C-alpha cells in the first residue's frame, strides 16, 4: 500500500489488502465469478490475476461448490479468499459456510483451523432491487464459529481484511456497495484485531452505534446534532461476531442513551439483539434506548421507496431530537 498519508479508495484498499497478503503468504488464494480476468463486477480485483497467476481463479456460477471448495482447501493448507458477488447469493453458500466451515475447529476438537474469508458486496441504496441489496447479517450473525466483519472506512477495510485473511477460522467480510467509491485516509496499521469496536467520535449525550455504511450516516448525524448542541458519541462495531459489547457498554455508561442504527429489519436484526445484550448487562445505565431499522419488508427498487426504506442521517437526527425532547423544545420555541 502507498506509504505516504494519502487517501485511498475503499475498493482499492481491499485490492491492496488481498495483494499484500498474497505477497506475504503463498497459501493465500482468491477465487470467484469473474474476479480474475475481468477483475470483478465491482472493479475491486483487477490486476491480481496478472500478479498472482493461478492463485487467482475465475469460477463457474457455483456458489455452493465455491464455498465448499474454500472449506476443503482451508482445512488442507491453503488460506482461500472467495468472492460471493452480491451478499444476497450467500444464501446459496450457507450450508458450506455454516455446516462445514464454522463448525470445523470446534467439532474436530480443535485439530485443525479453517482459515477462509468470504468477501461479499452487501447493502441497498443503489436501486438494485430486493435480491441484490440485502444485508446478510441477520442470516450470519447467529452462527457460532463464523466471524462477521464489515468495515466502514477504506483504512479499516485494508487492516481488517488483512487480519481476516490471517484469522484461523472463517470470516465473512462484508463490503457495502455504497462504500466502494469512498476515499479515506490509508490505514496507519497493517492489521486491526477482529472484535474490537472503535469510538469514532466522542460525545456525552447519546451513543449512536452502527457498522459499515451506517457508521458514516451516524457521523454525519452527529455533525448535525452538534450544531443543535447535542453531543453524540459514535461507536463503529467493525464486527458483529465477535461482538464488542464492552465498548458499547462503556459508552452507554457515559451517555446513558443509546440508539442502534441498522440497515436491516428490527425483528431478527443485530441492532435489537445488541440492545438486548446491553440491557441485560447495563440496564441501570440506560435512560433511553432504541433502534432505527428498516420496515419489515423486502427492499423496494424505485428511488422514492428505497430512500424511504433506508435509515439515513436525517432520520437519526430527527429521532434523537425527538427522543431527547429537543423537538418539543424547538416546537415550543424553548
Amino acid at each position, binding site marked *: 500500500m502507498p506509504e505516504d498519508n494519502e487517501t485511498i479508495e475503499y475498493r482499492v484498499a481491499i485490492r491492496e489488502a488481498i495483494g499484500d497478503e498474497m505477497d506475504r503468504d503463498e497459501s493465500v488464494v482468491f477465487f470467484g465469478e469473474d474476479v480474475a*480476468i475481468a477483475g470483478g463486477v465491482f472493479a475491486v480485483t483487477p490486476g491480481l490475476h496478472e500478479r498472482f497467476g493461478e492463485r487467482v481463479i475465475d469460477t*463457474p456460477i457455483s456458489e*455452493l461448490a465455491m464455498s465448499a471448495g474454500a472449506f476443503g482447501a482451508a482445512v488442507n493448507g491453503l488460506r482461500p479468499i472467495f468472492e460471493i458477488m452480491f451478499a444476497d447469493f450467500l444464501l*446459496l453458500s450457507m450450508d458450506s459456510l455454516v455446516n462445514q466451515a464454522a463448525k470445523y475447529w470446534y467439532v474436530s476438537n480443535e485439530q485443525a483451523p479453517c482459515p477462509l474469508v468470504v468477501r461479499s458486496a452487501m447493502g441497498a441504496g443503489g436501486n438494485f*432491487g430486493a*435480491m441484490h441489496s440485502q444485508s446478510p447479517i441477520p442470516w450470519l450473525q447467529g452462527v457460532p464459529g463464523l466471524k462477521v466483519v464489515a468495515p466502514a472506512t477504506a483504512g479499516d477495510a485494508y487492516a481488517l481484511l488483512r487480519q481476516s485473511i490471517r484469522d484461523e477460522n472463517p470470516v465473512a467480510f462484508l463490503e457495502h456497495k455504497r462504500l466502494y467509491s469512498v476515499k479515506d485516509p490509508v490505514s496507519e496499521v497493517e492489521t486491526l484485531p477482529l472484535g474490537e469496536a472503535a469510538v469514532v467520535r466522542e460525545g456525552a449525550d447519546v451513543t449512536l452505534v452502527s457498522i459499515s455504511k451506517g457508521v458514516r450516516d451516524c457521523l454525519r448525524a452527529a455533525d448535525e446534532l452538534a450544531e443543535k448542541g447535542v453531543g453524540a458519541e459514535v461507536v463503529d462495531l467493525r464486527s458483529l461476531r465477535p461482538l464488542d459489547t464492552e465498548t458499547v457498554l462503556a459508552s452507554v455508561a457515559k451517555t446513558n442513551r443509546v440508539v442502534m442504527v441498522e440497515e436491516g429489519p428490527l425483528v431478527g436484526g443485530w441492532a435489537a439483539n445488541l440492545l438486548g445484550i446491553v440491557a441485560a448487562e447495563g440496564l441501570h445505565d440506560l435512560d433511553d434506548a432504541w433502534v432505527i431499522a428498516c420496515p419489515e419488508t423486502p427492499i423496494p*427498487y424505485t*428511488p422514492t421507496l428505497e430512500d424511504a426504506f433506508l435509515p439515513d442521517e436525517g432520520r437519526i437526527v430527527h429521532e434523537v431530537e425527538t427522543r431527547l425532547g429537543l423537538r418539543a423544545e424547538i416546537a415550543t420555541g424553548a
Partner: protein
Amino acid sequence: MAEKTQAKAAGAEIDAAGARDLYRRMRLIRTFEDTVQSQFQKGNVHGTTHLYSGQEASGVGVCSMLRDGDKVAGTYRGHGHSIALGVDPQKLMDEMLGRETGACGGRAGSMNVVDVEADLIGCFGIVGGSIGAATGAALAEKLRRTGNVAVAFFGDGTSNQAYFHESLNWAQIEKLPVIFVCENNLYMEFTPIENVTAGAIGSRPQAMGIHYRQVDGNDVFAVREAAGEAIEHARSGAGPAFLETMTYRFVGHSRSDPGKYRKPGELDEWKKRDPLVLGRKALEERYGLDPERLDQIDAEVAKQLEEIVERGLAAPFPDPANVGGEFK
C-alpha cells in the same frame, strides 16, 4: 391484454400476418432495450439492467408457441422474455422507470418483474431461480391436470449451478410438463462458457434421459419449430424437454460492461445473423413481404416506444408513505 393476445396469436401454422407479428415483437424488444439503455444513461432507469438485444428470436420463438395458461419464468435478462410473452411494454417500462404504474408498482425493477395476468410467474434475479420456479409451476399444472406447461428461460452459465441439476432431475422423475430453455449466448457475464463448463451443456439433460434439442436461436422460425416439439413433448405428459437456443448478446452483460472479452470479429459475425436481419429476410423470402412494410413496422414500434417513455416519465412515483406493504 392486447399485447398478450398478439404475442401468442401466431399459432403453430402462421400466415403472413402472423409472421409480421413475430417480426414486430422482436423489433419491439430491440427498441425497448435501446430505450431502456438510453433512459438508463439519462438517469431515469436505476440500478442495473441486463438487455436482451440479439437474443430476441429465442424468447419470441418459444413464447409464440405457448397458449394462454402456460407459465413462464424469465431471468434478470427478462425484458425480452416478458415482452415475448405479452407483458404490456408500457407497464414494463413504467417498472423500469420506477413508477406506480409499473408492472410491480416500482417495487421490482428490471430484474424481478412479475406479471401474473400475463402468465409471467416472474423474472428471477438469482441465477437458476427461474429453473426451480418453473419446475414447481409445472408440478402445479400436472397435479391440477390443466394441460398447461411451464417454461424456464436461463443462460448457459446457469447450467453449472445447483438449481439446474436438482430441478432437471426432479422434473424428469416426476415427468413434469416443463420446458427448460437454455439461451446459450456463449458467455457467462465476461467469461467464455467453455472456461467454466465441463462438456457440452446438452449432454447434461441427455444424461438424465430428458428430451433435448439444440437450435439456431437467432432464427425465430427454427426456434418455433423446435419449441413446438418441446412443448408438445411436455404437454403430452412425457416429461420435461430441454431446448438449447444458440444465440449471442449484442450489448454488454449489464449496464457497465465494455465487452473486452469478446473474440475479435465475433460480434460482427453474429450481427450478420441478427435475429431481426434473419427475420426480415425470411419474411421477404417466404412470405413475400416487401421491405417497406417492415420498415413501417420499425417506425411504428419506434413511435410506440416514444409514446411509452413519454407516458412513463409522466407517471407518478409511488408515495414513500406506502413503503411498508402488508404481509397477508
